[in-house]
């Protein structure tokens, strides 16, 4: 993954996928079994098998469509597709790759912004504390998305049940964690 910051533009998503992730889109023969079993198939703008089809076809415009699609953010990585795929195509890894690319080329679909913000909030919390803390995560996420009222009705009861504790539990030497984040971003500009 070292080169992922210096991708030549003429270097197609398909070939990057094959080289970096080791998934070969041409293995897919479009039977659609992935889509048939996908728990969110009817919410996806581009169905799982179509994602592979677009990678196979390599037509102008397809890549932008893919990177701008909602589907890649809806994929829950539940691996139902892969576990039943007759050609053993690891679709969830394709989705991970496309998500990272779409952020890198900032083509993220508008409806996916909340999902992205959540992931970012999550990673930031980890970077600061080394561990997740629901309070921090929630606040962080709410600041990012500004839908402040969501879940507030839950909070009090959660406190009572001790499910939320405002004091963040942290890793002792948080430095280590920060280092990991730093080294990675230095190395290949992982999205943050």
């Amino acid at each position, binding site marked *: 993954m070292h080169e992922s910051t210096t991708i030549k533009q003429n270097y197609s998503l398909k070939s990057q996928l094959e080289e970096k992730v080791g998934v070969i889109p041409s293995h897919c023969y479009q*039977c*659609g079994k992935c*889509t*048939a079993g996908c728990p969110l198939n009817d919410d996806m703008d581009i169905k799982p*098998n179509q994602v592979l089809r677009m990678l196979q076809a390599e037509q102008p415009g397809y890549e932008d469509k893919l990177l701008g699609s909602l589907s890649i953010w809806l994929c829950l990585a539940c691996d139902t597709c892969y576990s039943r795929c*007759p050609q053993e195509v690891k679709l969830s890894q394709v989705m991970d790759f496309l998500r990272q690319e779409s952020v890198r080329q900032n083509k993220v679909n508008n409806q996916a912004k909340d999902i992205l913000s959540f992931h970012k909030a999550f990673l930031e919390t980890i970077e600061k504390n080394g561990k997740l803390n629901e309070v921090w995560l929630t606040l962080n996420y709410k600041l990012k998305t500004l839908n402040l009222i969501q879940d507030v009705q839950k909070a009090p009861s959660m406190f009572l049940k001790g499910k939320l504790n405002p004091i963040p539990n942290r890793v002792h030497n948080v430095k280590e964690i920060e280092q990991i984040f730093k080294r990675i971003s230095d190395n290949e500009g992982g999205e943050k």
Partner: protein
Amino acid sequence: MARIGVFICHCGENISATVDVARLAEEASKMPGVAYAMDYKYMCSDPGQTKIIEAIKEYKLTGIVVGACSPRMHEATFRKAAEKGGINPFLCEIANLREHISWVHPRSEATTKKAIDIVRTIVNKVKQDTPLYPIKVPVTKTALVIGGGIAGIQAALDIANAGHQVIMVEKSPSIGGHMSQLSETFPTLDCSQCILTPRMVEVAQHPNITLHTFAEVESVSGFVGNFDVKVRLKARSVDLSICTGCGACWQKCPSKKIPDEFNAGLSFRTAIYSPFPQAVPNKPVIDRANCTWFQKQKCGLCKKVCPVGAIDYDTKDEFIDLKIGAIVTATGFDIKHTDFFPEYGYGEFKDVIDGLQFERLASASGPTNGEIRRPSDGQIPEKIVFLACSGSRDKAKGIEYCSKICCMYTAKHAMLYKHKHHEGNAYIFYMDIRSSGKNYDEFVRRAVEEDDVHYIRGRVSRIYEKNGKLIVKGVDTLMNSEPVEIEADMVVLATAVVANPDAESVAQKMHISYDKHHFFAEAHPKLKPVETNTAGIMLAGACQSAKDIPDAVSQASAAASKIIGLFSTDVMTREPVVAVINRTMPPLFTTCTGCLLCMEVCPYHAIEREEIKDRAGNVLKIAAKVNAGLCQGCGTCVAFCRNKSIDLQGYTNQQMLSEVMALLNKPF
């Protein structure tokens, strides 16, 4: 002292245009051992051949070299000429001057020099040639047909009708095979049993056919024309010579809860049973594993009720030894069962069935007398979903190949259902429709256009049960890959065609090779589709690859014709290009040390272990022995032999070495 004659052909101008033929002939005449050399416009022509014949006589030639076209073209022609001239045909060799020289190089010194080199090479080879004589092998004109399905039946009848003896061995109690289980057949929808059963009877009554059902081949040894086959006749517990097949026994048999193989497990049979009403022979057999008498020494009812006293609990397996000239392997196929499909319920949903089970449901002789009812509650399904490619073309499940017959029989199944229940709905999930047989695609179109079968392009991800319905989660890839969910009453999986569980062991008994899926391997994918690489053993039907009935029958007839051809002579002759183990004076006998590496590598099992004994029968030495009947002359053994004790006639170490020496212009 060798006296070689060299004959250079101009081939019109094909050779002479770029090779200086006159000079070539002259150079040749100077080569050591060459007694006579000439060139001529058309060596293969009648006058050309006459020149050769005369020269042989006139110059008392001991061998000839013809510099002409490729040996693949005219070697046979010139060897005949040599024979006419009075020398052993294997003392005639061809120097390939046309395909390998004149046609691929411009006229030049280099080209002519190459021609000279090649001629010298071949001259030297001929010097090393020894007269060879075609190998004669006697032929036992009895064929063995293994497997009594439609392929076996067809092959047996063809051979028998040609006037040769046929012995048929079938492992189950009746012949008929899978075809006897089918309802109607595509693309004509004629009743399977109506066309099959007459053939079964014909086999049983044919004067040239001996039928052994409930029997299995134990071992096969020997070689083409001369196989020795041992057959196990499994203990039937019923004396066929007395039994009239009245059925009193199986009507009385108390153990009635044994899954019926013929009905693909959809009904039950008794412990003493005849597989199906039209069985041949229609006489029962006792399934000892499920018989109370054999398990608990109780009951014995069948023996009591048998009016002719045909039941005999004490029969044992018998063995018979057969002398066989050629063998047809027609052991058929098996299919994957529904438990092979986790995502479709591990075979636990009663109403998810496989293709053969549907055939039985649709068959007039089936458990529902041809009414398509679901196994769970006997209701008539209003919605049936058919899944093509169930297990086929599925790398993850270890079956990459296409099972070939599913597209067609699935269309047939849907039609049969629609014909019986016009108001019913039939859905077929498919990936591609492969209907490339005569009238096949028309048949599929009929299903779509006339019988209004719904074809949906996409695979089904999962099936689960809910309130007595089967929820089928599929997709329509032709409809923007929209998810499709169908509440079906019954699901039919067109499960993959696979080799029989015992295919591997059968192949090993026969010494024929098989692929990684245990289908038997033909000798050549295009030009020898029915032969195996063991001479005299042919393949017919689905044991070689998934096949429909027409294909199986054609291959069976092809196999039969190969054998009839083989049986057309009393003695068969074979090219003497075979390996031989050298022989020397006692006490050495041979330089072969008996390491038998050659035996390991021989693709034809043509090499045996020989014990060289003295008169008293004491073993003096172990050595390899080549069976000329089996050897095909590849020479792999020669290359492997550590001390050059085995050699290949026509391509001996001496010959090859002298060839190489000669073309490098080194004396040898």
